[in-house]
């Protein structure tokens, strides 16, 4: 290495760590702090704003407690959607896909619709309860595993084909659901429609003891896997070359992603573009390839988007039912914008 002509960078500053320069480090921590402040601000706002009781009376706390459950749901959804989407995009090697296109949402819609179709308005009630909640999650995870397992173990194992088949199955389930919806009475349809838009108030407090661990455990496992995900993001060949068992890694990540997506969907309903919106923003904010940096930013961003949207819609427009519609609208617009700007999928 004697004939090096270019001057090497000064010793002591040379590091391969992400956030190697003090400038990027400062930038990252400033953004993280801003997100944290916003998150705490919105959380406090949702708890305390418009609380009819005077601050720090027992009535105030009782109302705040009721609202806190909603907040916990938002935290769960934020962690699920953000972690799942970032991981999924990495294993798919594509920054504009979202795991919801894998058919989770169509499955959720199909299950909800058939319940109402076969049982009438009572069907929605029949789907509420802890066992039913668990069953829905199990169904969605099983669906995903069968699909992944089947498609990734074949000779033509190919993620693109898997995505395509996921979309097709999703489309098929969606059509079946639409067909059943046509046969519902208007009042039944009304009951159903409320369940088919992602809505934080869809969640029931009784689900939380199950939903919390089902969200935390996969998210922590993915976080612990972050260094491997960095390698996976280099693509199949490079990760094999660096000693990863790429297919095993893929299956592991997809399994965890499917649990997270199933929990989020079963809890609050479909949120198609939320994950995409948040992952795109998180990569802009974190400005790094390193999943250990991207995950926290993504989860915080997701919580800020959710809680911010709820806060604004509830307290300024008095319309908290349409929050997810607004988020989806913004997410969808960003999605289109990114596709049009990149000019490819």
């Amino acid at each position, binding site marked *: *290495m004697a*004939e*090096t*002509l*270019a*001057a*090497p*960078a000064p010793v002591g500053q*040379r*590091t*391969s*760590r*992400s956030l*190697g*320069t003090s400038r990027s480090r400062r930038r990252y921590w400033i953004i993280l702090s801003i997100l944290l402040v916003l998150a705490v601000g919105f959380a406090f706002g949702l708890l305390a704003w418009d609380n009819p009781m005077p601050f720090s009376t027992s009535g105030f706390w009782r109302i705040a407690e009721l609202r806190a459950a909603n907040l916990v749901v938002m935290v769960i959804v934020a962690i699920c959607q953000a972690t799942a989407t970032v991981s999924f995009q990495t294993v798919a*090697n*594509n*920054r504009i896909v979202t795991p919801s296109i894998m058919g989770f949402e169509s499955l959720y819609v199909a299950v909800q619709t058939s319940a109402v179709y076969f049982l009438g308005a009572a069907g929605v009630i029949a789907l509420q309860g802890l066992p039913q909640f668990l069953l829905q999650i199990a169904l969605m995870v099983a669906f995903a595993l069968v699909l992944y397992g089947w498609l990734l173990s074949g000779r033509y194992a190919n993620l693109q084909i898997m995505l395509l088949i996921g979309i097709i199955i999703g489309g098929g389930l969606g059509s079946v659901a639409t067909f059943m919806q046509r046969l519902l009475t208007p009042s039944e349809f009304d009951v159903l429609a409320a369940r088919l838009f992602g809505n934080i108030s869809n969640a029931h407090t009784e689900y939380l003891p199950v939903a919390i661990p089902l969200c935390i455990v996969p998210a922590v496992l993915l976080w612990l896997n972050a*260094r*491997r995900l*960095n*390698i996976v*993001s*280099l*693509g*199949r*060949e*490079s990760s*094999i*070359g*660096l*000693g*990863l*068992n*790429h297919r095993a890694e893929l299956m592991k990540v997809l399994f965890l992603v499917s649990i997270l997506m199933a929990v989020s969907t079963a809890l609050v309903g479909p949120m198609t573009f939320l994950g995409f919106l948040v992952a795109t923003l998180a*990569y802009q904010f974190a*400005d*790094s*390839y390193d999943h250990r940096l991207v995950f926290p930013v993504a989860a915080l961003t997701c919580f800020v988007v959710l809680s911010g949207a709820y806060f604004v819609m509830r307290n300024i427009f008095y319309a908290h039912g349409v929050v997810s519609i607004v988020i989806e609208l913004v997410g969808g617009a960003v999605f289109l914008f990114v596709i049009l700007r990149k000019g490819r999928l």
Partner: protein
Amino acid sequence: MISLSEVLKEYSSEVAIGPVDLEIPRGGITALVGPNGAGKSTLLTMIGRLLGLDAGTIEIAGYDVASTPSKDLAKIVSILRQENHFITRLTVRQLVAFGRFPYSKGRLTVADEKIVSEAIDFLGLGVLENRYLDQLSGGQRQRAYVAMVLSQDTEYVLLDEPLNNLDMRHSVQMMQHLHRAAEELGRTIVIVLHDINFAGHYADRICAMKEGRVVEFGTPAEILTDDVLTRVFDTPVRVIDGPNGPLAVYY
């Protein structure tokens, strides 16, 4: 030693690579040459276990590439592919540091950083090490990829057209370095080259492929003849005596 026996890859009923039987001895540089579509990249990626075989076996240093765990092979063999593109926002140094993954599992030690620095400096990327990959020229990026492979620090190194996009100076520097690595560190280097004169000058052995088969294997002196080169490349080649050994003239 790298040994291939009855190695076969069938892309379709018309296009098949192999069957190839080949022994690449330990140490030194082996150049893989041949016309476009001869199967050089296919063979190299199969040796580097990035592509499955349809038949046959490949062993590197006695390890069967199909059955040895990938993480063990990653400390024995490294491979540079012909095409590389990474979508993530990476700096040169971060990319090169990925080469240490088989050892560090992502937790870089001081020793790892030192090897990364060496690989970067050798390829003259010191001043560029904090640039993002998408801010580099084609040749600079190619050098970054090669630096990543070198930082993996393996006994067997497979390089598919590493001189792609490189200017004269960097091509010569890279070949000199590889030559020294083979000589002094006992590395076994298999390299796909299109410039037959580079192969003739720097390689210890040349393996010529054509239409999916190995058609010649020998020392540069044996391969660099009018006869053999004309046959392999299907184009008239004359070999003359140059100042530094035989020189193939084909333009």
